[in-house]
């Protein structure tokens, strides 16, 4: 009898082992902000759009919720674009265009915006879109009960709304912000139906109602989210050429986490498109006659390694410059991503306002220089080739997350080898719990991060000094001059002056060797040849209203 009890206890062991193994795999897949379409290499042949059909689009991860106010994941925003509209849109050239708001005006003190809204727009539940609806949306985001996080970060410094008339609204801010208007074009600030949101409460995320070209039909968890054509849609804007109802009858998002299955699904015809194509498949698909590949470089902050300025000896410029000169970023990016990713040069990516092109090509690997810099600082190579000073070994504590997202762990391994050549010992720590290691204990010399964002103001969250009560930045930089530039650029209305300020910040960051910019992440989609008209907005999110399926 005793023996037969075993399985029951074995169960306990299984549950525990699994919990322990998987817990701590904190997903870092949240990206509050946005991305930009730089180029779509897809081959869309021009022909008359065909009405009808179902477009199946395989996502790598599941959206957390379809309530934009509560979502924390970029993958949800890919669905928001079909379900909802935003007040403004970001055009391909980076300028802002009208959507649900047709005109906007900033007050002289920069503390309020008056928006004229489009008339005749209806939510999918039949209720009208108007100034009251906008007011409800934004007020509910700043209400703690709503539990908004990323949407709240984007809406800041919003204070209140005044409904001027049915189609005019005045948005008041706590402080002036040049990034505010641009943020209104972000998917997480999509406008939801107030009637439905109030009625459904917490369940709105599973029963979403917006004004977008597709209506919500069903969501079966971890399998698919099915949307159907909104026949009343007539207010398309931005980069979509089709401003009326969509060509597709149905738009189905399949959730397929395993990349071999996802890409295999396009090849076997089970889905028509699949996102996030691994580098080796990108190379193969580019020459596949039965498929097309779309590649869109995201904008914002590239994948960047940040030095922790509070750790010795990395508080010294020469030490950081030595590492900057020793790391061969070109080789790393070419080796790991087979030429499918572009290397980054600055703290911003190309394609964003204020990007400083003059930094491109400025850093080249130079081991002599690197060695000389460390010699100057008094670090002398010991018997095993690692430098020492006053009995201390020269080590660099490099922290990276697990799982190995975008082969970032392999970057760490290659940098470790490259730094060995100048006598720096790199201790690579791969942890599943970045939140604790990095954001609570700040225990790292070098840590990498990236952020998709449409406004260069994103730099403030990474390089502006912080108060005692605030969370410190990854560098822990505190320089009044940089603070001044960032603050001025945050409120500067003249674009040329703004650009100049952000260029100053970027040059400073590069000259001070605060970071090692590594790569620009491309959003990739593999699709069947029959998929026509698929484009991506400047945020890198797919536009479905122009899509049709050829025979």
């Amino acid at each position, binding site marked *: 009898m005793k023996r037969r009890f075993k399985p029951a206890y074995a169960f306990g062991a299984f*549950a525990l082992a699994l919990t322990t193994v998987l817990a701590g795999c904190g997903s870092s897949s949240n990206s509050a902000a946005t991305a930009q379409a730089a180029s779509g290499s897809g081959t869309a042949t021009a022909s008359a759009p065909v009405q009808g059909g179902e477009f199946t689009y395989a996502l790598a991860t599941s959206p957390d919720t379809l309530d934009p106010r509560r979502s924390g994941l970029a993958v949800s925003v890919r669905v928001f674009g079909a379900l909802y509209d935003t007040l403004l849109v970001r055009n391909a050239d980076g300028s802002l265009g009208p959507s649900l708001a047709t005109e906007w005006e900033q007050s002289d003190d920069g503390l309020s915006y008056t928006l004229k809204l489009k008339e005749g727009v209806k939510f999918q539940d039949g209720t009208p879109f108007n100034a009251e609806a906008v007011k409800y949306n934004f007020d509910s985001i700043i209400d703690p009960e709503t539990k908004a996080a990323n949407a709240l970060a984007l809406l800041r410094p919003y204070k209140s709304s005044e409904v001027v008339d049915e189609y005019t609204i005045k948005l008041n801010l706590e402080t002036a912000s040049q990034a505010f208007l641009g943020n209104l074009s972000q998917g997480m600030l999509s406008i939801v139906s107030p009637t439905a949101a109030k009625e459904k409460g917490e369940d709105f995320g599973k029963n979403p109602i917006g004004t977008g070209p597709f209506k919500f039909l069903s969501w079966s968890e971890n399998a698919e989210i099915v949307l159907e054509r909104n026949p009343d849609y007539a207010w398309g804007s931005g980069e979509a050429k089709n401003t009326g109802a969509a060509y597709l009858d149905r738009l189905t998002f399949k959730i397929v986490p395993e990349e071999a299955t996802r890409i295999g699904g396009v090849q076997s015809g089970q889905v028509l498109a699949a996102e996030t194509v691994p580098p080796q498949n990108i190379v193969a698909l580019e020459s596949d006659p039965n498929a097309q590949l779309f590649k869109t470089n995201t904008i914002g902050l590239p994948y960047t390694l940040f030095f922790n300025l509070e750790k010795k000896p990395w508080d010294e410029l020469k030490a950081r410059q030595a590492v900057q000169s020793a790391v061969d970023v070109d080789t790393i990016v070419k080796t790991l991503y087979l030429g499918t990713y572009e290397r980054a040069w600055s703290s911003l990516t190309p394609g964003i306002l204020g990007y400083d092109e003059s930094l491109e090509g400025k850093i080249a690997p130079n081991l002599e220089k690197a060695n000389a810099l460390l010699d100057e600082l008094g670090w002398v190579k010991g018997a095993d080739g690692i430098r020492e000073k006053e009995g201390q070994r020269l080590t660099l504590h490099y922290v990276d997350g697990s799982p190995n997202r975008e082969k970032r762990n392999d970057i760490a391994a290659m940098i470790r080898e490259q730094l060995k050549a100048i006598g720096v010992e790199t201790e690579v720590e791969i942890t599943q719990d970045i939140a604790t290691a990095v954001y609570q204990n700040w225990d790292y010399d070098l840590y990498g991060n990236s952020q998709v964002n449409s406004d260069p103001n994103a730099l403030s969250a990474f390089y502006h000094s912080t108060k005692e009560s605030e969370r410190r930045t990854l560098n822990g930089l505190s320089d009044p001059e940089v603070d001044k530039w960032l603050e001025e650029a945050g409120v500067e209305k003249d674009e040329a002056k703004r650009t100049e300020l952000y260029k100053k910040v970027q040059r400073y960051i590069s000259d001070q060797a605060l970071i090692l910019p590594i790569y620009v992440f491309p959003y990739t989609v593999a699709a069947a040849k029959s998929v026509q008209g698929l484009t991506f907005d400047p945020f890198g999110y797919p536009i479905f209203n122009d899509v049709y399926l050829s025979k």
Partner: protein
Amino acid sequence: MLQAIGSRLFSSLLVIVGSLALVFCIFYLLPGDPVLSMVDPTTVSPEVIENLREQLGLNRPFHERLLAYFGDMLTGDFGRSLVGSEPVLPKILHQVPSTLLLTAASALVAIVVGVTLGVLSAVRKGGIIDLSARIVGLFGISMPTFWSGILLILIFSVQLKWLPAMGSDGFETLILPALALGFVGAGSIVRMVRGSMLDVLNEPFVTTLRAKGLRERLIQIKHVLRNALIPAVTLIGMQIGDMLAGTVIIETVFSRQGIGRILADAIMAKDLPVVQGIVFFTAIVYVGINLLVDLSYAAIDPRIRRKGART
């Protein structure tokens, strides 16, 4: 027998409560914060994060949270998911049929393939069937399911285009994942059945039966297999448990719905209410399977049936 079942149920209850409390403690002790895995810590301000913690009740002391959890559970309230804020119980129950179906189909593959090959290889020892059975045994045990799963997709979906690579609606979508998962079980069952068949075949009573002139086929099926099945049934019970665990991987590889997949996602997001709900459900299934295994001993072996009253 009834008494045995009663004490069995009691100890099962202890196992369930114990595992729930233990998982709760592990989540409490493990570093990491569900809120930090929900938001982008570089843009979202600390006060917003504090507000989220408060709204989700994560800032309350450990004993309060533990007591509140068990209290709510007794009233049938398993709480809401921290991530999607939907109620846990319907979320899990909705996914259960898919996982049970996959487990049952895999068990069928494992039992049919395992027992058939095991018996054939024992009676035709040294032949081609014996060799293939041993290969199945070896591969089944040593191939990780995510690997065999991807191989099956590449062969039958991408190359031959016979079967779908993903999804969980319809019989067709069940075949590849059930094969991938069932093969692991088949591997162990083949070895076990073959071994115990050979043991029983060498026992004196078989010689007696042969001497009495019974047909060899009848001896093998009616007498030898029946005796050899008892250890195999124990193994099958445990294998079904393993398959339930294996759905965590297989459901992800084949993009199937199911509690395995929810569990993996929930653990990644440190979504404790969902993890607890699944632990609770899985524990019940495990205990149920073991009860069935016990009862089946009696069905197979008359000696156990007769002794049953005394245990």
